[in-house]
């Protein structure tokens, strides 16, 4: 929290912006920056988009579109503790990225108490796979793809067995998470990962829409409508459960 914050204003939950203040900040943005954001209607669903490369310990060169994990982690914490947010929709179109950052995001999503639904649009490749399966329910667009391949280091000659062991351990972390959070079996996932003859530059598999569901990676084929419907259903279910619990405590 900054020193400049006014007393009585908590860092966790500042009060809702008044209509006047909102108008003023919009005008300020137009005057200063020549841009403004579309005023958003109050929503109880927080949409988290994961695009491009997932950036972790290393700042990637600017030609990469990145999702910065140091921004996503506090976002997830804020969404978890904000009483106005009742559920999370995670939209993925990622080509992969940092293993540790990806797994950290996936672990955060899987440990949320609020309902979460993931939707893979376009692609959810490599480290995007554990993120896609980390939500309570997962959907994939019919044309979306997921590339499952081993972790490797480009241009590196593996000269010592320790390097190979290290990469295998990294891979095991990803495999264990995916198996634990989806219906795919270890055997099927490893078969997909080490399949030869499908990818030109690598070993592995590209699964498209229905195939991801068939292998048990993703729950269903669908779009944003299906994902939101499922999320709202889970939100309602949670409300009933918490309402029943509160009722029991009152009695």
């Amino acid at each position, binding site marked *: *929290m*900054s020193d*400049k*914050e006014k007393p009585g204003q908590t*860092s*966790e*939950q*500042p009060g809702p912006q008044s209509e006047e203040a909102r108008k003023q900040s919009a005008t*300020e*943005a137009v005057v*200063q*920056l020549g*841009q403004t*954001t579309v005023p*958003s209607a109050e929503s109880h669903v*927080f949409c988290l988009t994961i695009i491009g*490369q997932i950036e*972790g*310990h*290393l*700042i*990637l*060169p*600017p*030609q*990469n579109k990145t999702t*910065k994990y*140091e*921004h996503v982690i*506090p*976002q997830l*914490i*804020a*969404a978890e*503790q*904000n009483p106005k*947010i009742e559920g999370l929709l995670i939209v993925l179109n990622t*080509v*992969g*990225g*940092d*293993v*540790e950052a*990806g797994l950290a995001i996936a672990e955060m999503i899987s440990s949320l108490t609020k309902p979460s639904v993931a939707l893979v649009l376009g*692609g959810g*490749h*490599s*480290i995007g796979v554990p993120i896609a399966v980390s939500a309570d329910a997962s959907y994939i667009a019919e044309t979306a793809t997921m*590339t499952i*391949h081993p*972790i490797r*280091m*480009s*241009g590196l000659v593996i000269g010592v067995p320790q390097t190979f062991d290290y*990469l295998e351990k*990294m891979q095991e972390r*990803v495999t264990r998470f995916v198996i634990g959070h989806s219906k795919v079996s270890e055997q099927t996932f490893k078969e997909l990962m080490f399949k030869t003859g499908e990818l030109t*530059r690598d070993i592995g598999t590209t699964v498209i829409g229905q195939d991801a569901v068939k292998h048990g990676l993703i729950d269903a084929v669908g779009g944003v409508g299906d994902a939101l419907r499922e999320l709202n259903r889970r939100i309602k279910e949670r409300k009933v459960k918490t309402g029943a619990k509160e009722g029991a405590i009152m009695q």
Partner: protein
Amino acid sequence: MTIYTAMPLELVLDGMGNEPGPFVETTVKGMTVQLVPVAPGVGRIVRLLSAPLDCYLKTEYAPGQLIGYMPQDEPIPPASSLYDVPRFGM
């Protein structure tokens, strides 16, 4: 650090040796942010270094957004206060 991506690593890491930045660290509306200046007083957000948790949920403070970073909180001192020497009826 291991990068696990479907994109060729030579494309992802191209230009890795170039120095990133220059970055500016400043406090805007109670948040400490790291910016890349794009015009005088305007910067592109790189990351929020220290901010109230609620700011992370606002799209206007997401990395990549433009933000004005002129010091707004400190009132500009009146010109007369800059002179310590008393003026004698000139």
